[in-house]
């Protein structure tokens, strides 16, 4: 647990740097679709640590991203807080929702919530309609983020590695 307190912030900081620096490489700029790798980490923490861990790490990660982006401070913090909290509902013994496609499902749900909050609020006061926001931004970004989260499924787990060594 103590190790996690150090590990998670470091991972989040690294991902925030990646998100701000290199995400354009994998973003579908023409379609305005950007994956959110920080959100994937927040969801992961939420499933692993529960509602409190997910919401607290989500809040600070979102706030830092907000500050770095400088346009709409507090919006990502709100979206990540809620997403991290919802991800906390999927915390189970044995981390069932971190394995296989369960994680993709949780990521999709939490991404939808996050994108809905973010783009929903961001588009208020603009000429973009609600349906357009949902179709062009919320679903697309959530789907793309979920696809990117498949990377986690590729990363071998410690238990699997240990089992492999013993075999």
């Amino acid at each position, binding site marked *: 647990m103590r190790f996690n307190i150090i590990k998670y912030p470091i991972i989040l900081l690294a991902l925030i740097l990646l998100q701000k620096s290199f995400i354009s490489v994998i973003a579908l700029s023409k379609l305005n679709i950007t994956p959110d790798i920080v959100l994937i980490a927040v969801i992961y923490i939420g499933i692993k640590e529960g509602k409190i861990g997910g919401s607290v790490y989500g809040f600070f990660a979102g706030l830092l991203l907000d500050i770095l982006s400088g*346009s709409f401070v*507090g919006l990502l913090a*709100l979206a990540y807080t*809620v997403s991290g909290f919802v991800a906390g509902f999927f915390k189970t013994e044995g981390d069932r929702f971190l394995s296989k496609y369960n994680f993709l499902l949780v990521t999709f749900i939490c991404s939808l919530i996050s994108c809905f909050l973010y783009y929903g609020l961001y588009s208020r006061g603009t000429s973009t309609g609600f349906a357009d926001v949902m179709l062009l931004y919320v679903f697309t970004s959530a789907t793309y983020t979920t696809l990117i989260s498949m990377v986690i499924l590729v990363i071998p787990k410690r238990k699997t590695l240990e089992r492999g060594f013993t075999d």
Partner: protein
Amino acid sequence: MKRIGLVILDLKEYIILTVLIIFSLYFIFSNDNSQIRFLRAVAIGTFGTVQSGLTAIPNVFELQQENKLLRETNIKLANEISNLKESKLENIRLTKLLNFREENKLSFVSGRIVNKSLVQTRNTITINAGEADSVFINMPVVTVEGLAGRIVSTGRNYSIANILYNKDMRITVKSQRTRIDGILMYDGLQNLIMTNVLKSADLTAGDLIITSEYSNLFPPGIPVGTVTETGNLDNLFKKVVITPAVNFQTLEEVFILKHLPDKDRADLENSYQKKK
């Protein structure tokens, strides 16, 4: 207390979530861009609608506070009105006194009544003017309306006067219209009676009664009262009831006329009475 602690512990996740959301919203609303302006407008509109709906429900605590405030204001205003009325009445009285001062050629001392009795057979008033103000026994006490009484006792700063409603008072009076003479006295009950008026005398209700020049105690011509009732006392005399010009119930200020009985006249009349 323990139960509350347990409830808080059970809800800690939601409490933390709420706190974080509040912080996020605080940061959001600290921004100043078009989206936030729009959200603020929506929030204010929604809040205003809800609030206007809630105003229909009376807030007991606010009403209590408002009632308390209104009561305090009411007391203050009532007090102010009372003071204003008092000032107005005082102004009227003083204006009359000022006119009286200008009209009356006799010098006088003004005084305020500090005590009075009206329910006895020998009623008096105490005035806050005494020998230090050159007030002496037998000086007439008057008001703007007319004769009030006579000084019967003096101290350095106070004096006592018999008023018309005193059985010891005997005043020589006359009708202003018909010049009929009589003696005014208090019957000890409720009435001022003008005695020694013959049945044939021309006196009717409404006639003004004034002090007579036959009196050595009072200057002539001071209004005493008006005739309100006439009837037969016996075969010879009339019963004439007088309503005094002065309202003793509301009397507050008086003047003591610096008029003393003529000593030569008094001595002469007294010596003549002794010889008889």
